[in-house]
């Protein structure tokens, strides 16, 4: 990595920036669910469309943040975070499917003539257990993969490609119908969560609120990490792993910790994403999605906390907009965006804003 300046700068300014932007955006975001409850004719009413759209983007923002923890700070570019996101989503999805199907089997199982639930579905009718899965599934996978990967010092490009292979394998596995997760249709047609109708404005508002909260919490976490000695060790690790080892630090532990943490954050984001967009399927695990996530981070500015959030917002905002405005051409824009960012904005949008300030 080649921007020590910017990194320290943001670390100095980190708290202030976080406080400011966090404060302002937070206000709006907290207001939105309330406004969404207004009657439709009210001019301040926030439509369900906007709410779900922003909610979706917020979930992506959390993923971006999580990815930034491992890439921006620890220098491990993961091209497999989509997998953790999807695992969290699937765990939540299992619960929602059970809610929807009541005592019977989920629909996709009945018409492929499954007679009973596979063992790994046991207990998913309980919300608390589903929540445990949301954390455990991505967490454990990350733990195992990370343990082996870091033990044998896989880093840089190798690490990226291995993670990509991992998520690709995951995608193929979930595409199989025998795997018992609805094949490529995945889970859809949810009805209720904790007894509340999934389409109720109230439920939507609460889910949105929860997402905002998770974002705030993960921001706070990230901030604390970045400020702690742990954060500094990560930065050191990124820049001179050998030196760090000869200082007597064992890099594996540090990598593993942040790697698992990031995976769990992704899982949680996925769990909030599913009820809001109303579908989870293996497409989420496709390598493309994970690469896109990396682009959010790069665009926003990696090694900073706000950058990834901006990145996720901008890219997805553009996506939603271009796909209406210029359906045929939005891939050109996206592609060009990638190139321009990597060529001219190595520090991302944040870097740009900072430069402006210094003038």
């Amino acid at each position, binding site marked *: 990595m080649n921007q020590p300046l910017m990194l320290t700068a943001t670390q100095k300014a980190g708290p202030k920036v976080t406080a400011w932007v966090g404060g302002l955006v937070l206000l709006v975001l907290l207001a939105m669910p309330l406004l969404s409850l207004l009657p439709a004719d009210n001019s301040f009413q926030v439509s369900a469309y906007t709410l779900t759209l922003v909610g979706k983007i917020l979930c992506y923002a959390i993923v971006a943040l999580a990815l930034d923890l491992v890439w921006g700070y620890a220098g491990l570019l993961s091209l497999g975070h989509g997998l953790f996101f999807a695992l969290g989503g699937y765990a939540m999805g299992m619960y929602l499917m059970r809610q929807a199907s009541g005592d019977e089997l989920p629909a996709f199982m009945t018409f492929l*003539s499954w007679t009973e639930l596979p063992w790994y579905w046991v207990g998913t009718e309980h919300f608390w257990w589903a929540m445990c899965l949301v954390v455990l599934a991505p967490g454990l996978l990350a733990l195992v993969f990370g343990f082996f990967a870091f033990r044998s010092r896989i880093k840089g490009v190798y690490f990226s490609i291995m993670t990509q292979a991992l998520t690709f394998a995951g995608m193929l596995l979930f595409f199989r119908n025998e795997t018992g997760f609805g094949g490529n249709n995945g889970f859809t047609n949810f009805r209720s969560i904790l007894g509340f109708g999934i389409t109720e404005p109230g439920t939507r508002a609460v889910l949105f609120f929860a997402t905002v909260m998770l974002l705030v919490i993960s921001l706070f976490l990230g901030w604390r990490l970045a400020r702690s000695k742990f954060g500094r060790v990560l930065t050191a690790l990124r820049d001179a792993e050998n030196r760090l080892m000869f200082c007597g630090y064992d890099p594996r532990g540090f990598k593993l910790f942040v790697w698992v943490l990031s995976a769990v954050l992704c899982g949680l984001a996925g769990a909030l994403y599913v009820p809001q967009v109303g*579908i989870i399927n293996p497409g989420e695990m496709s390598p493309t999605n994970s690469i896109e996530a990396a682009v959010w981070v790069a665009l926003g500015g990696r090694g900073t906390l706000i950058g990834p959030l901006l990145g996720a917002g901008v890219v997805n905002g553009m996506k939603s907009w271009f796909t209406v405005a210029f359906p045929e051409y939005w891939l050109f824009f996206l592609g060009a965006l990638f190139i321009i960012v990597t060529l001219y904005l190595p520090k991302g949008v944040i870097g740009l804003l900072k430069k402006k300030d210094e003038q």
Partner: protein
Amino acid sequence: MKRRSLIKAFTLTASIAAMGMSWTLQAAETIKVGILHSLSGTMAISETSLKDMALMTIDEINAKGGVNGKMLEAVVVDPASNWPLFAEKSRQLLTQDKVAVVFGCWTSVSRKSVLPVFEELNGLLFYPVQYEGEEMSPNVFYTGAAPNQQAIPAVEYLMSEDGGSAKRFVLLGTDYVYPRTTNKILRAFLHSKGVADKDIEEVYTPFGHSDYQTIVSNIKKFSAGGKTAVISTVNGDSNVPFYKELANQGLKATDVPVIAFSVGEEELRGIDTKPLVGNLAAWNYFESVENPVNKKFVNDWKAYAKAHNLPGADKAVTNDPMEATYVGIHMWAQAAEKAKSTDVDKVREAMAGQTFAAPSGYTLTMDKTNHHLHKPVMIGEIQDDGQFNVVWQTKEPIRAQPWSPYIPGNDKKPDYAVKSN
């Protein structure tokens, strides 16, 4: 001076939040109809032509004076083969653009992804592609075939003398829900015809599978045990390598005929058909059927493709889903005229029993209750010019059975559309 930057940052996020609220400008004198087909991503290969077909049909209707005296205005969006985006876009079409009806979706997963949205907002979707059934929503009209309108007649044909009286069957498919369900139905059907399990082989490949060496040689081995036919639900992209491998290993249609449910004129454009001659496809429409309606339909399409110089316009072809789109839009227009309104509930009522003289040469009827079209079934043989030669077809359009009787438990399902939640 950090503050300014923060305000910038904030306005950025805010503007993104606002994105949703934009695009809501309404034009009173037009009726907006949504078109929801992927124009980018993996599904663009199939869906792009449906988008164009929809636009052509809308022009055609407008040329005749529109619906209830109002012009139709198409709102095209690109869900980019991304299933969650399908849901988002449909919500946008219904709540932001306030479209009267949406024509779109190809894959089952995209339909399943938008279904809850349409049911929640009481929208109206016309779905033009053959699918696995097991669904009947009041907010969807299915103008494609249900399994009993495509798969079962095809197998009956293969078992008939003209079809080569096949005794053994290889059910080859890409591993997703449509092939799984279809093959499940077929297996049950074959059992009912007294075919033993040892004479049925079910094989699945991953998406985008491109190496069919092993599978084809297995088919060869299997076919040594008696007259064999392959029933292929292989998904679009994998068909080319599959057929090329068949040709390479010298498996001729006279020995082992392959009947496909998802290979149409459009797909054949991408295949060198000489080695395929004699292989079969089952659809409800072929470009080659001869009748005045179809002649006009095909010519209009070719003309439209030229006029808007769509890529590959010089050899533009029509296929079953295109016809289904065409029929769907016209039927909706008729229903709207009949209801004198585009209100979803009124139109839904008016749709029941609508009839339309389709390019397939039959007059298709929208069923009174089950939201599916009555469709004829045709078996076509691939010719070296990339067209199909219809070798067999049903006398009458067949009523759809979205809840296949061959799947246990379906007998309890109601024969009319009910919200899934």
